[in-house]
C-alpha cells in the first residue's frame, strides 16, 4: 500500500454503488456486447454452412483443407494460456510482481504461438494445392465458406492479438517500477478479457472445426 500512495496522480477507486469497481462493470458490459459480435459471426457461418453446403455441384467437404491436429494443438495452447493468466492475476493480488511477470510472459508466449498457428493455418489453406480456400473461392469455385471462415476466425485472432499487445503493455509497465498491488484490478480486467476470448474459442473450435468431422 505504501508505494501506491507515492503516485501523486493515481486516482483512488471511489466507493461505488454496487461495490464492484467501475472498470470491471465496463469490462463486463463490453464482454456482453462482444458476445453479440461473435454471436452474429458464428450464426452467419452456421447459416451459410447449412444453405451453401455444396461447391461446384459436389458436397463441400472441408476436411480436405482442415488440419485438425494443428488446430487441436493451438486450441490446447490457448486454453493453457488461460491458466497462466489466472496464475498471473493471483500473483499480483498477492503483490508478487516477479511471479506475475513470468505468468504474463507465459500467457503472451502461448497467445503468440496460437497466433502463429493461425497465420500458418491461413497461409496453408489459401495455398493448399488442389484445395485452395480463399476469401471468395474454394478449389477455384466461388463459395462463401472462405468468407465466413476467415472473417470469423480472423476476428477472433484480432481479439487474441489485442490481448497479447495489452499484456505486453502491462509487462513493460511492470519494469517501470510504478507497478504495485494497486494494479491488481487492471490485470484482473485484462484476465477477464483473456478468458472471454478463450471461451469464445471453446465455442468456435467445436462448432467450426469439430462439427465438420461429426457429419
Amino acid at each position, binding site marked *: 500500500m505504501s508505494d501506491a500512495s507515492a503516485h501523486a*496522480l493515481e486516482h483512488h477507486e471511489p466507493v461505488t454503488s454496487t461495490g464492484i469497481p467501475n472498470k470491471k462493470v465496463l469490462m463486463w458490459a463490453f464482454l456482453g456486447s462482444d458476445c453479440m459480435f461473435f454471436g452474429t459471426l458464428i450464426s452467419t457461418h452456421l447459416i451459410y454452412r447449412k444453405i451453401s453446403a455444396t461447391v461446384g455441384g459436389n458436397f463441400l467437404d472441408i476436411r480436405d483443407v482442415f488440419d485438425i491436429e494443428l488446430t487441436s494443438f493451438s486450441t490446447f495452447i490457448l486454453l493453457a494460456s488461460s491458466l497462466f493468466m489466472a496464475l498471473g492475476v493471483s500473483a499480483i493480488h498477492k503483490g508478487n510482481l516477479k511471479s506475475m511477470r513470468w505468468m504474463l510472459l507465459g500467457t503472451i508466449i502461448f497467445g503468440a504461438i496460437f497466433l502463429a498457428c493461425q497465420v500458418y493455418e491461413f497461409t496453408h489453406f489459401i495455398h493448399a494445392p488442389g484445395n485452395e480456400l480463399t476469401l471468395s473461392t474454394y478449389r477455384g469455385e466461388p463459395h462463401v465458406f472462405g468468407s465466413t471462415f476467415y472473417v470469423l476466425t480472423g476476428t477472433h485472432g484480432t481479439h487474441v492479438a489485442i490481448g497479447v499487445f495489452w499484456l505486453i503493455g502491462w509487462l513493460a509497465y511492470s519494469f517501470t517500477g510504478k507497478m504495485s498491488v494497486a494494479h491488481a484490478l487492471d490485470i484482473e480486467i485484462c484476465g477477464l478479457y483473456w478468458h472471454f476470448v478463450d471461451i469464445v474459442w471453446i465455442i468456435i473450435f467445436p462448432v467450426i472445426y469439430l462439427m465438420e468431422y461429426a457429419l
Partner: protein
Amino acid sequence: MATESIKYLAPNTENKVKTQVFPRPGQHTTGLVDWLTTIDHKKIGLMYGMTALFFLIVGGIEALLIRSQLWDHNMDVLTNREYNQMFTMHGTTMVFLVIMPLSAAFFNFIMPLQIGARDVAFPRMNALSLWCFVGGGLILNLSWFFTGGSPAIGWFGYAPLTDTRFAEVIGDMGPDFWIFSLQILGIASLLASFNFITTIINMRAPGMTMMRLPVFTWMTLIVSFLIILAFPAITIALVELMFDRTFGTNFFDFLEGGKPHLWQHLFWIFGHPEVYILILPAMGIVSEVIPVFSRKPLFGYGLVIFSGAIIGFMGFAVWSHHMFTTGMGVVATSAFAMLTMLIAIPTGVKIFNWIGTMWGGRIRFDTPMLFALGFITMFMIGGFTGIMHSSVPIDAQHQDSYFVVAHFHYVLIGGALFGLFCGFYFWLPKMTGRMMNEKLGKFVFTLMFLGFNLTFFPMHYLGMIGQPRRTHTYNEGHGFETWNQIATIGAFILGVGIVIGIYQFVSSFFNKKLKPAGKNPWDARTLEWALSSPVKEYNFARTPIIKARDQAWENNYGPRENHSEKEPLDDHGVHMPDRSWWPLVTALGLFGLAMGMLFHRTIDPSGELVRDYTVPILAGSVAIIGMIMWALEGPGGYHLFPKENEE
C-alpha cells in the same frame, strides 16, 4: 485493495508540462482549447446537442429538397440519382446524426445530475465518444465530394444493391463512405453506452436506489443496454459488407453463394431495437415533464419502467416484421406478427400512465408541456398505424408505400423529435441559467405541430392510393399531386418552426436579457433541480444523501424525514480530473484510419489494382499512441473548494 482509499496529493502541474508531448491543459483553460480537451459531461453534452442540431438543419434541407422534387408529377428539381442520394442521406443523418446524438446530449448532461454524480464513470471515454461522433458525421457528409457522390442505397442499404457489381457509377464510393461512417458512429454509441451503464449502475449517490431513479435515467439505462446489444449486429453486417466491397468476399453476393436475405436479418436485428433506441429517451423526457406540469408524481412509476424494459427486450424479437414481404413463409410471418402486436401493450401502458399522471393534477400549459402533449397525441397515431403494420395482410399493401413513411415520421418526429424539443424547453434553463421566451416557444410549437401534421397526415392517404416510397417522381393521373403539394407546404412550415426553435435554443446561451432561471423555475421534482442554474463545474459541492424518489420535490414539500442530506465537505476539496488531448487525438487517428481505408486502393497505369496501406497504418498508429498516452497520463486532476452553502 482497489477500493481502499488512497489520499491523493496536490497535483504538480508544473512538472507535467515538461514531461508531456502536448502540455496537458490545466484548471484555468478557456476558449477553444477548453472545448477541444474538455471531459466535463455537461460541455460534452452541449457539444453533442449543438452538433446534432447542426445536422438537423442539414438533414432538414435534404428533406425540403425531397419535398420540392415531389411537388408535382415529373419534376426535375433533382435528378433521380440526386434524389436517391438525398433520401439516403436524409435517413442516415436523421437517425444517426440527429435523434441518437440529441438523446445522447441529454443522457450526458442530465443523467449524472439526476443520480447525484459528479461526472460519468469514464470522462475521457465520454470525450472520445463525442469526437468519434463528430468524425463519423464528417465522413458521411464528405462523401458528396468523391466519386459517385453520396450513397444512393437507402439508409437500410439492402444487399445486393450495395454490391460493387450493381454500382450505377463506375467506382462509386458512396456506400464505402456510408459503411465507414456508420462504423465510427457505432464506436461512438458503444463507448457512450458502456459509460452510461457503468455510471448508472455504479455512481448513484448514497440512498439513490434503482427504484428511486428518475424515469429518464431508467430509460438511459435501457437504451444503453439496447445499444450495446443491438449495435454488434450492424457492425458485423457492415464488416461483412466492407469485406464484400473491398476484398471480394461473398457474404451478400448471391451469384457466388451469398444470401442478400442475411443482410436484412442482420440489419433489422439491429434496426428494430434502434427504433426503441430512438423513441425511449423521448418517452423518458416526457415522463419527467408531465409530472412536473401536473404537480403529481408519475402514475404507476414501476409499471412505466417495467414496460420500458419489456419494450426494449421484445424489441429484439420482432425484427422480421420489417420483412413480411420478403417471403419468409406462413409460420415465421405469423409468429412475428403476433409478437409485434404484443409489443403494443407495454407501449399503450405508457400512454395510459401519462394520462393517469395528469388525472387530478393542476395542469400548466407551458411550452415543455405543450410539446409533451404533442408527443402523446402524435405518438399515439404513429403507434396505431404501427399496429396496422403488424397485421400481415395490411402490411402487404402498406410496405414500402407512403403509408409507412407517414407511420415512422409520426413516431420519429411526432414522437422522438417532439420529445427532444420538449427536453430542450424543459432543461435549457438548467443548462443556461436563463428562461426562454414562452411566447416564442408556443409559436414554435404551433408551427411545428401544424407543419408536421400537414406534411405527414396526407401521406397515409398517398400510400393507400398507391404512391411507393423512395421514388424520385411519379406519373400524372394517379391523383398524387394535391396531397404531395399539401405535404410540401407543411414541410416548409415545419422547417421554419424547427429553425426558429434552434435559434431560440442557441440564443438563450448568449442573450443576457432573458430572465434568470433560478434553481427550480418549473417547481420540478428530480434531483437536478436542487442544483443552481447553470450547474457548477463540479455538479454537487457535497454528495447528496437521497431519501426519496423525486428528491427536489420532497425537499420542498415532503415530510422532514424525506429531505435529502449532504455528505460532509471533504477537507481536500472536490477532486476534478484534468482535461486531456488524447481522446481527440485517438478520434483523429480513427478518422484517419477510416479515410485511409477508403482511399487505400488505386489503379496504376497498367490497370492493376494497387493497395497502399501507409495512411491507414499511420493513422491507426496515431490512434494507438493516443490510447497509450491516455493510459499513461492517468486522470490527473486539481481540487476545487466550494463554499459551505454552494450547490
